[in-house]
């Protein structure tokens, strides 16, 4: 127990050094639903750039809540409140001069349930550009090709870009959603259990894609699957009851967890 605590403290102090300060810095962040029901307790996380960070933990422990705080999707819910701060490249996302719309352009999101619009594949990809008022045909065409290629979907759909997106398979739809998220060139991509509704083959494709994408983007992925977290992520945060119990290199978390709860969870003793 003592050893594990020491280990944790060591990790923490290492994280706090300026050189290693993450692109996303979450500081003493607490979150409340209905003004009183606390879902997150004093979260401190430094998420490094161009890496994949996975959030794991039993359901209801606040992973989605934290993820949705990073692009302020929680603003849509009435009667919520937060304490502490989240900074992206040193700027607070809650600052009153921050424009939520430009924040969401910098922080793309992929949801658990794929949610393409009832429009053509083409229109789906460029939705972010359309709402930003970009009309230049060449830019749009280029964006579509680039995004679909990055999302490993180009070869499959290049002949039916103007067909409805709702005709795609589940895995293709989810990759389309990823393409849509990267179309407006975000810095960060948030993924909330992107594979939970997909079969193993489609899941494999998305995982591969995610590994590809980390070259250009910082990725946070919430996942239910231990294997997935260990396969793709560089860092892992284990959540339990609204708190981050342990946050470390994925290797360390899975081979040598400092906290016994973490160990119990990843070995499948609860969760």
């Amino acid at each position, binding site marked *: 127990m003592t050893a594990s605590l020491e280990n944790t403290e060591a990790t923490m102090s290492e994280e706090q050094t300026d050189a290693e300060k993450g692109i996303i810095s979450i500081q003493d962040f607490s979150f409340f639903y209905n003004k009183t029901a606390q879902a997150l307790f004093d979260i401190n996380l430094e998420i490094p750039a161009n890496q994949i960070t996975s959030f794991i933990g039993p359901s209801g422990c606040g992973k989605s809540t934290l993820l949705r705080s990073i692009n302020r999707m929680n603003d849509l819910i009435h009667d919520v409140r937060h304490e502490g701060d989240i900074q992206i490249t040193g700027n607070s996302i809650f600052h009153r001069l921050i424009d939520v719309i430009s924040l969401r352009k910098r922080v793309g*999101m992929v949801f658990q349930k794929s949610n393409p619009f009832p429009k053509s594949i083409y229109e789906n990809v460029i939705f972010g550009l359309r709402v930003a008022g970009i009309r230049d045909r060449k830019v749009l065409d280029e964006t579509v090709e680039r995004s679909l290629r990055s999302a490993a979907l180009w070869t499959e759909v290049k002949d039916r870009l103007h067909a409805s997106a709702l005709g795609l398979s589940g895995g293709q739809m989810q990759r389309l959603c990823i393409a849509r998220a990267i179309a407006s060139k975000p810095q960060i991509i948030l993924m909330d259990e992107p594979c939970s509704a997909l079969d193993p083959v489609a899941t494999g494709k998305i995982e591969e894609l995610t590994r590809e994408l980390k070259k250009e983007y910082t990725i946070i992925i919430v996942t239910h699957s231990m294997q997935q977290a260990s396969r793709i992520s560089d860092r892992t945060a284990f959540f339990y009851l609204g708190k981050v119990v342990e946050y470390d290199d994925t290797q360390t978390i899975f081979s040598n967890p400092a906290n016994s709860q973490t160990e119990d969870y990843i070995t499948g003793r609860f969760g």
Partner: protein
Amino acid sequence: MLQRQAAAGEPLVWLSSMGLATGIAMVIFLLGLILVNGISVFWPKRVVQLQVSEDGSERQLIGEIVKKQKQATSGDQEWQLYTANRDAFGHSFVYVPEAAIGEQSQPLDILKIERLEFGSVFGRALRIEQADAEPISLVGEADDPQLQEFVDEATALRAEVTEIEKSEIGRVNNRIERLKRKPANSAITAELASLTGEYEALAQKARKLRDLATQTHLIYEISDGRERSVAIGHIVSFYRPNAMGLSARCGRFLHNAKVFLLDAPREANTEGGVFPAIFGTVIMTIFMSLAVTPFGVITAIYLHEYARTGPLLTSVRIAVNNLAGVPSIVFGVFGLGFFVYFVGGGIDRLFFADTLPTPTFGTGGILWASLTLSLLTVPVVIVAAEEALSAVPRGTREAALACGASKWQTIQRVILPASLPGILTGMILAMARGAGEVAPLMLVGVVKLAPSLAINSSYPFVHLDQKFMHLGFHIYDLGFQSPDSEAALPMVFATTLLLIVVVVVLNLAGILVRDRLRRKYAGSTF
């Protein structure tokens, strides 16, 4: 034990299915009754000639048998006969006790003549009398083409007169009106004088044509042996109801139906067609839909997307729902007070001050009627649109917002397109409700006879201030307001049938549009 439990629900199933069956049976019965009565109006019936001996005196009757029934007081069987010839007898229907009826026959030489005035004639054609030529005697069916020639000529003349009266004189009149409104100067006075001259010339031509059409008469003999005459120009058509074969009968049926659908009404609406009423109903319903849909959708968007939940929103919702239950005549009164007197009166004072005290918009018209009905139907659209908006999955909204769309962009680009089919359902329901509404219209612009259509060929083509005819009001007018409501009864059924058809067609059109849209967003369960 298990079996008993499984069977326990059975009576309820029976009860509900019986309820359904009763409902369907009632609808089928209603539609069937209207269909049979409505369609049989156009079928040329056989005409019987009866020898009636009553109180020792013999008389002859000619007519169509309307129905046979028991007399209310004595219980004797009696026949109702449509004898037409209202101008000669003073009535068009008689009741004859069955016991008094002697010899019956269906003579082939009886003619049914449809006239512009006083309804139809049953009689035997005798001769054609002309002003400056020898009379032409008509003996039998062989002479019909001769008569037909005269009738055709007169019909052509009449069409010419109508054309002159309606469009040419109307146009000259319009120009005179417009010139009169301008400040007077010599050029205008001169033009006025020449226009007035043109008007006089046209009016004279019309009179002359009309005289020509009335100078030749057809002399015919009616059932009691009297000789009567009708100007050829007043004959719409004639035929021999008993001499017709099946194909001729079908042809006459189609002709009658066509006249009903495409002609303007005559004789206090009891004869002729109902085209202006069809047109008025359709145009009014379309205007109403165009007004109510955006209004309802905007309200629904505010209520659903922007308003914060709370007691205020709840009470607004309750108020909207209750609005749907307010008696429609209340909306009529509101429309009269607000649209006609307040808004219309204001418009008149501002823009049409030179024609006052004759109101332009300050009186009932198709615009005010459409707006009044759109108030009546707006709750339907609001409720349907709100439902459609909430049927758009949360994931879709979040996806749009996560892409950096503003709230309004999300609504405009994603939510509205996805909920369009549901919104159109609301519009269809509103159309169904509004197209059949009569009571409020009587206060805000419907009339029994409108001189011209609301959309026509005279400038500015769409006349929103114009009064209009409506099928629903037409039914009311025929059934309750016409001088001879018994004679108008068949028309009531035919018009009712038509109103149902028009409402169904309007709805089908809406449904078609909606399904096309739905196919565009096929499988929008995401």
